[in-house]
């Protein structure tokens, strides 16, 4: 399958426009087509741009994100768990966390219109992954962006080597996309291992323990593998050094960072860390870049 991704952005270059409009702060209307509970506090929202031509042409890179808006309530950045190889529908996996997300859970139903700005950020350097093995490690909500990457790699199956996903959750009911991941694992298109901190007596045929332990059991050819990690700050604290110990060069490990964001387009300053704006230069960084930015990982 030949698939053309949008080029990565050259930061601080000539002016350009977001796909959703010339005013980068103005969301484009998108209709909620389907809502599905993924876990007790995470929901999948499927959206389609109300403007038919935007719905058809909206393209993004795995790892990019959008700003979701409800005027009068607020805006928030959310990763895209769907793959650009399956355009038309945009999925968001949203956890109940505060003002905006509570509103989405309590007041938004299928058929309602929301606002979207994007795509934003850099995304994963997937061009470099071709003909390589890709090891994805997800912790908690970090599965959301990695599910977009997983679908992308599966759709381009012949152009990458092994696709490995290690995904840790707190408990079985917290596992996002569980049925889908289990069935993909059975099909053998990807090597997928799920783990939970503790099964707590519930039926669970995955592993028990922290996700870093899963790493000990995978045979890797680190020289032909890229690692991509997504998870909360504590997760990075353990996973990244473990990958380095396993032999990965720091520039072959990628991670996606969460920061306070308002504008998403490099103007408001809120996401600044060291010399980077996370919304423009990120949210994906190599581990090498990340450790050279003060505050980037561990605060």
């Amino acid at each position, binding site marked *: 399958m030949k698939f053309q991704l949008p080029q990565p952005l050259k930061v601080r270059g000539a002016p350009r426009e977001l796909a959703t409009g010339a005013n980068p702060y103005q969301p484009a209307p998108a209709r909620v087509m389907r809502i599905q509970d993924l876990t007790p506090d995470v929901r999948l929202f499927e959206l389609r741009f109300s403007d038919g031509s935007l719905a058809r042409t909206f393209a993004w890179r795995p790892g990019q994100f959008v700003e979701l808006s409800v*005027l009068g309530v607020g805006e928030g950045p959310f990763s895209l768990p769907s793959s650009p190889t399956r355009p038309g529908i945009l999925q968001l996996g949203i956890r109940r966390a505060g003002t905006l997300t509570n509103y989405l859970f309590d007041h938004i139903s299928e058929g309602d219109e929301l606002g979207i700005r994007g795509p934003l950020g850099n995304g994963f350097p997937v061009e470099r992954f071709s003909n390589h093995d890709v090891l994805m490690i997800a912790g908690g909500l970090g599965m959301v962006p990695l599910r977009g990457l997983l679908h992308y790699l599966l759709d381009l199956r012949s152009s990458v080597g092994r696709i490995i996903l290690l995904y840790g959750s707190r408990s079985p009911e917290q596992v996002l996309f569980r049925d889908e991941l289990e069935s993909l694992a059975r099909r053998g298109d990807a090597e997928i291992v799920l783990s939970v901190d503790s099964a707590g007596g519930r039926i669970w045929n995955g592993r028990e323990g922290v996700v870093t332990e899963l790493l000990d059991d995978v045979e890797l050819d680190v020289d032909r593998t890229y690692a991509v990690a997504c998870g909360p700050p504590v997760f990075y604290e353990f996973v990244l050094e473990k990958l380095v110990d396993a032999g990965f060069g720091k520039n072959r490990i990628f991670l996606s960072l969460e920061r306070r964001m308002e504008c998403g387009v490099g103007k408001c300053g809120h996401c600044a860390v060291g010399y980077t704006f996370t919304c423009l230069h990120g949210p994906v960084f190599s581990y090498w870049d990340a450790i050279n930015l003060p505050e980037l990982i561990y605060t």
Partner: protein
Amino acid sequence: MQTLRMNSALLPELLEALKEWGRVWAPVERAPDVFSLEVIDDDVRRARPEALRTIVPFKKLLLKPRFTMLSGRTGEAPTDPLDNDAGAQVLFGVHACDVHALKILDLLYLTDYADPYYQRNREQLVVIGYGCWPDEHCFCESMDTSSVDDGFDLFLTPLEGRFLVAVGTSVGDDIVRANPNLFEAATRQDTRDYLRRLREREEAFSLEIDVTDLPYVLELKKDDPVWDELGKKCLCCGSCSMVCPTCSCFNVMDEVGPGGDSSRVRIWDACLYRDYAVVAGGHNFRADRADRVRQRYYHKQEAFVREFGMPSCVGCGRCIENCPTGINVVEVFQYVRGEL
């Protein structure tokens, strides 16, 4: 660049003429030695272009401290109410450091995804520069921002009884051609006097900052105890950011009005404020004052250099003049270098 001369006595006439190009803003004296930037259309004689700093710089003409970006019915597709649009404006009495600050804001707001709110006001802004004379808080000479050769439409440098007028753009040329009675060709004496003033002004700077390798020095000193010391002294009041011509961070908030109308409001913000880096769940990436103070200095002197090849401080001295606890950017960097 074309250079002309104008008799000093004709300044009010020029200001009157400038009204043709938009509302005219200039520094005016609010209280003894306290200047603010105001519209002077009703009485152009209030203009005090030689005043060194207005408390709040020109950035307020381009982006209001608070404006509505989008509005509409709650939950419906919003529209831009043009709340920030100021129409044509003439900024009179812009000093060299301000022109540099304007260029820095242009870099930030007009690259990548151009900010339409900024852009619409910027495109209609006429910039009339004015040659100033430094005081003990100015250090633009060290920041390489003490003179300009572009970024203005006209630039007036006061000489004995007259101004040397540099015409920087075709809009400046329009102004000159519309007012032939005000300007005449500059003489060799004017140029000689101008160059002498330039030299004397260089000598007049008393405050200096050593910016050699500053980004490297900062990189090496990011864990230095000096930041904790500063964190103890700084109140995180944000005054230094509000008065800084290049500080332009903002926050975005949604407000619900009566009758189901909502607006998305954009407000000046400062990285020194406690909640600046708070994310959902309450985690604060810069909970310590020391980290926030460091962020401000690093962003101006290191981050901006890495991204744009120059610092985002123009040495105007406003933050020094307005800090309630006497924190002085020049001293901060002397500390960091270990010179104090």
